[in-house]
């Protein structure tokens, strides 16, 4: 190996981590420095491999030198954000694992014919979904980091240069404080339902216990039609998770938080209205399947009565969603109103 090989490698290691426009300048300057140092150490003699290593050792780790030149360290997730990132990551991964397991267990119970297939499938899908969850959380935090929306701007870290005691926020009144468990449960539920709607929509159905044939179910929705709405549905789910992160960060029902939460609710209501207004989302063969299963049912069924309930329940969904949204929004508005007075 040529004696100067290490020098080239060292300079490359430092400059490749730097911005294009300063790279050449620094490279030239650094090479000059190393040559000066070598010359001085050699004292007119020959430059040996040992001498090169000695000089480079003294200059230290090239990444650290590059950091010095850059003036700051580079992170995907900075130390200030890491705790928060890790909390969200744990919640997301745990919810995915739990939801997938629940889906798997219900599927295994209702369809015992292919137990092993189910398990292989469960394992593959869960691994895939966990990786997706990991990637998405990291990407979101990476974007937050990259765009400089760091913890200071998000209000997690209140240590800023022009800090004044008057900037201290009032300790939130217990009645308007958002407990951490609320948004965390929210995230877990959102992920749970997203997973059901993505992978196991057919599990949302009516369950019957039959004579000798185990538990049978009839899906309520037409999976294919419903999945056309999936992008919008997942978009709203993403909004729900964003809402919960905001609640987690702010920690109290401020007016802004309340307005945001109500806005998310309204978007959800609009989607629900569109969704339930489309009659084709319902399983078109519900009654036929029911009749087919009906012969094996353990109890006598009144098909006409069920058909009537089935028709009515189609219309009832939208009322349930509207009422829930309405009451939650009123509740949030009251919290925020009280918070404003305090």
């Amino acid at each position, binding site marked *: 190996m040529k004696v100067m090989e290490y020098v080239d490698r060292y300079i490359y290691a430092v400059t490749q981590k730097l911005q294009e426009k*300063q790279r050449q*300048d*620094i490279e*030239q*300057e*650094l090479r*000059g*420095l190393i*040559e*000066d*140092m070598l010359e001085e150490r050699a004292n007119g003699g020959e430059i040996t491999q040992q001498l090169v290593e000695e000089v480079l050792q*003294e*200059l*230290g780790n090239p990444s*650290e*030198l590059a950091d*010095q*030149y850059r*003036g700051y360290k580079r992170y995907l997730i900075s130390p200030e954000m890491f705790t928060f990132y890790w909390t969200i990551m744990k919640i997301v991964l745990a919810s995915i694992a739990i939801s997938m397991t629940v889906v798997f267990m219900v599927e295994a119970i209702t369809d015992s014919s292919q137990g092993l297939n189910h398990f292989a499938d469960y394992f593959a899908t869960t691994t895939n979904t966990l990786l997706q969850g990991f990637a998405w959380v990291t990407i979101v935090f990476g974007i937050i980091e990259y765009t400089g929306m760091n913890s200071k701007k998000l209000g997690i870290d209140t240590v800023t240069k022009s800090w004044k005691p008057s900037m201290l926020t009032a300790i939130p009144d217990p009645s308007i404080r958002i407990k951490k468990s609320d948004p965390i449960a929210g995230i877990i539920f959102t992920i749970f339902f997203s997973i059901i709607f993505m992978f196991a929509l057919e599990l949302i159905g009516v369950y019957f216990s039959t004579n000798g044939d185990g538990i049978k179910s009839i899906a309520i929705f037409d999976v294919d039609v419903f999945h056309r709405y999936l992008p919008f549905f997942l978009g709203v789910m993403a909004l729900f998770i964003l809402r919960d992160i905001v609640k987690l960060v702010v920690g109290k029902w401020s007016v802004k938080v309340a307005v945001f939460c109500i806005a998310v609710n309204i978007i959800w209501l609009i989607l629900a209205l569109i969704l339930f207004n489309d009659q084709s989302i319902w399983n078109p063969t519900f009654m036929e399947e029911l009749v087919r299963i009906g012969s094996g049912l353990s109890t006598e069924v009144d098909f006409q009565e069920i058909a009537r309930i089935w028709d009515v329940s189609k219309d009832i969904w939208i009322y349930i969603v509207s009422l829930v949204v309405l009451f939650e929004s009123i509740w949030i508005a009251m919290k925020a109103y009280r918070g404003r007075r305090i």
Partner: protein
Amino acid sequence: MTDIQATINSLIQELRRGTIIIGVLSQLSEPQYGYSLVTILEEKGISVDPGTLYPLLRRLEKQELLESKWDTNEARPRKYYLLSEQGKLVYEQLCVEWRTMMVSMDSLIGGGSHNEGDGVR
């Protein structure tokens, strides 16, 4: 004991860090390149790691305290740094600040132990 030594070393490092900038500015009324500056400072008892000095010179240049010029006439091209007009002003101000600090520190370290209680208002 080694723990105490390590603490002392890191504290000394911290103390030095602030003085390096004044040291560098003081020598740049004449143009110097990085390594010549290392040598000069070394001779006067201030040891600076080139890995610290080179990035520092760039930073000071970016803050417009220094001006730089490449000299390609010699065997190896060298980047020379020189105090800018603004740099001179800053250096003078830093010197004033340094002297005041020295006097205050002296009265704390030197005078304090002999006249105990004198420093209390």
